[in-house]
């Protein structure tokens, strides 16, 4: 009896193992094709949420009912990203949206066949350890970059604060996109002959103290599209307001919370652009490996009226109020 149990157990395990390797998601053979699109969003956050929403709307607008989403959020955990991507890949989805850098990298590692579109990723070359050719990756990956033109943002700082002596660059050292933007910003400011100093915090716990330090020596602060800063705008505002140090923000959410002005891109629009790329791949059979990375179109100059009046900042007429 014991032997039979043992044999049954082993047979069952082997059966599962074999089917695990060969099984996949169910394949549709009907005339009307339903597209399965998997989304892996790195963390809950206004900008990322908007991007996902924009992406889904674009697909729904173009494909209506024939698109089905599997939308997962990794809550900021790397190993959860791996689990989610594993789920999407093993179910053989038709396309994967990787919302932020870690999902993009994990998806890129997991599959060389399923088309992957990235969004809310600033620097594709570093993230994927490859060189772009005419803006395209040459493999199963493309996407949209949230890189707002940093040279224009540097110009914005000078435009609003012509006498600025030291620009404090405030960011989270753990965010690769922020580091990338700070590097660029530093270069652009230097080209314009303006001194800048870096102030990096490690996580939301030391945002306040690092901001304090920054306010002591800088007359203007710049915050890139930093996820951590975006979730701590209250804390930042509580420091810069009494210190009377204005903040130029990399995106609208941060500006609303603690900034005076921003050259903003709309994450919703970015997501929508990515969604349109997805439609090209799914419906029109475009070759993803040749699709160049798209950038945010039409950055808009915006300002925060309340903080501008509190800090006495004069805003030119071509800015829009948030």
């Amino acid at each position, binding site marked *: 009896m014991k032997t039979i149990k043992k044999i049954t157990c082993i047979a069952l395990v082997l059966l*599962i193992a074999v*089917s*695990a*390797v060969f*099984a*996949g*998601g*169910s394949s549709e053979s009907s005339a009307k094709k339903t597209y399965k699109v998997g989304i892996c969003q790195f963390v*809950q956050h206004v900008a990322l949420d908007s991007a996902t929403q924009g992406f889904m709307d674009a697909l729904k607008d173009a494909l209506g009912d024939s698109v089905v989403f599997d939308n*997962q*959020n*990794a*809550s*900021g*955990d*790397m*190993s*959860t*990203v*791996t*689990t*989610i*991507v*594993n*789920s999407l*890949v*093993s*179910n053989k989805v038709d396309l994967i949206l990787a919302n932020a*850098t*870690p999902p993009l*990298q*994990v998806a*890129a*590692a*997991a*599959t*060389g066949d399923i088309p992957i579109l990235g969004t809310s990723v600033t620097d594709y070359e*570093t*993230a*994927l*350890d*490859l060189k772009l050719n005419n803006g395209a990756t040459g*493999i199963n990956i493309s996407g949209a970059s949230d890189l707002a033109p940093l040279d224009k943002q540097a110009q914005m700082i000078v435009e609003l604060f012509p006498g600025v002596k030291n620009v404090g660059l405030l960011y989270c*050292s*753990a*965010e*690769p996109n922020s*580091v990338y933007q700070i590097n660029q910003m530093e270069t652009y400011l230097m080209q314009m002959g303006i001194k800048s100093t870096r102030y990096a915090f*490690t996580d939301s716990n030391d945002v306040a103290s690092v901001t304090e330090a920054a306010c002591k020596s800088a007359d203007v602060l710049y915050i890139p599209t930093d996820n951590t800063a975006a979730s701590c705008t209250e804390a930042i505002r509580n420091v810069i307001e009494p210190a009377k140090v204005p903040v130029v923000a990399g995106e609208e959410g941060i500006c609303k919370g603690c900034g005076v002005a921003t050259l903003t891109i709309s994450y919703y629009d970015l997501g929508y652009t990515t969604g349109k790329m997805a439609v090209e791949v799914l419906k029109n059979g475009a070759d993803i490996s040749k699709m160049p990375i798209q950038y945010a179109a039409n950055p808009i100059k915006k300002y925060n009226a309340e903080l501008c009046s509190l800090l006495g900042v004069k805003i030119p007429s071509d800015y829009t109020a948030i």
Partner: protein
Amino acid sequence: MNIGSLISALPGAIAQGLIWGVMAIGVYLTYKVLDIADLTVDGTMATGGAVCVMMMLNGANLWVALLCAVLAGMIAGLVTGIFHTAMGIPAILAGILTQLSLYSINLAIMGFKANQGINVRNYHLLVSSRNVKVIGPQNPIFVMIIVTALLIGVLYWFFGREIGAALRATGSNEHMSRAQGINVNRCKIIGLMISNGIVALASALFAQYQGAVDVNMGRGGIVIGLAAVIISTVLFGKIFHNFAMKLLGVSLGAVIYYIVIQIVLWLGLNTNLLKLLSALVVAIFLAIPYWKGKLAKGAKNA
């Protein structure tokens, strides 16, 4: 929700579980054998990957990079050991201090970039999620089974040696160990070095598997490691008595943990609740022996 999609996702879950199983074995050595709660691992779990990936991107051979990753982990364990023994800092705090320092150090190793990808196309990686369904020696499940078996073999040999016995004695009864002429401080340091070296190995493997190293990839690692240890104690405690089998049980515990996570995902539950659910899973595993005991008592009194 069809069972086919769950089953097809199992190989990935198993591969990930086996890699974290290596890390859990490292945690087991300090937590159960040496009786030290070592929080260094949250930092070491990123250090190994950082060293391995950066070296490979700079042209180093895979095996050399892996070896250096292990050495880096051992240095981290050494630092914690020194904090604890030579500077009298309580073990938990010593681990936290090292983990804090490792954040900056990991960042520095990665050239002050918080995240660095490594492309499976360009480099010969030992394990990659790309191959999880391939039938052949590149399948990470296959590779990890061999790595785990080798690791268990080496550890089983080591802990049967005189010095291994001294380490076990230190964890079991420090007072008696000193009375037997064992330098317990040195044993603790050696234990921490071995444990963190193993965690760093897991980190290097995981970085290759997921195609990137991220400065935050170790965050919360100690929880996963402990969860695996606890799951294995509850499920296999009564049947695995041999040290080698206990280590195997820990590896299986990690695999079970990741299978459970995969099931949670498959059930369509909101992944925002994933952390809460993980905590519940561990809590239930911890409660099972307690409830069993109560049930037995109840049956007796009835």
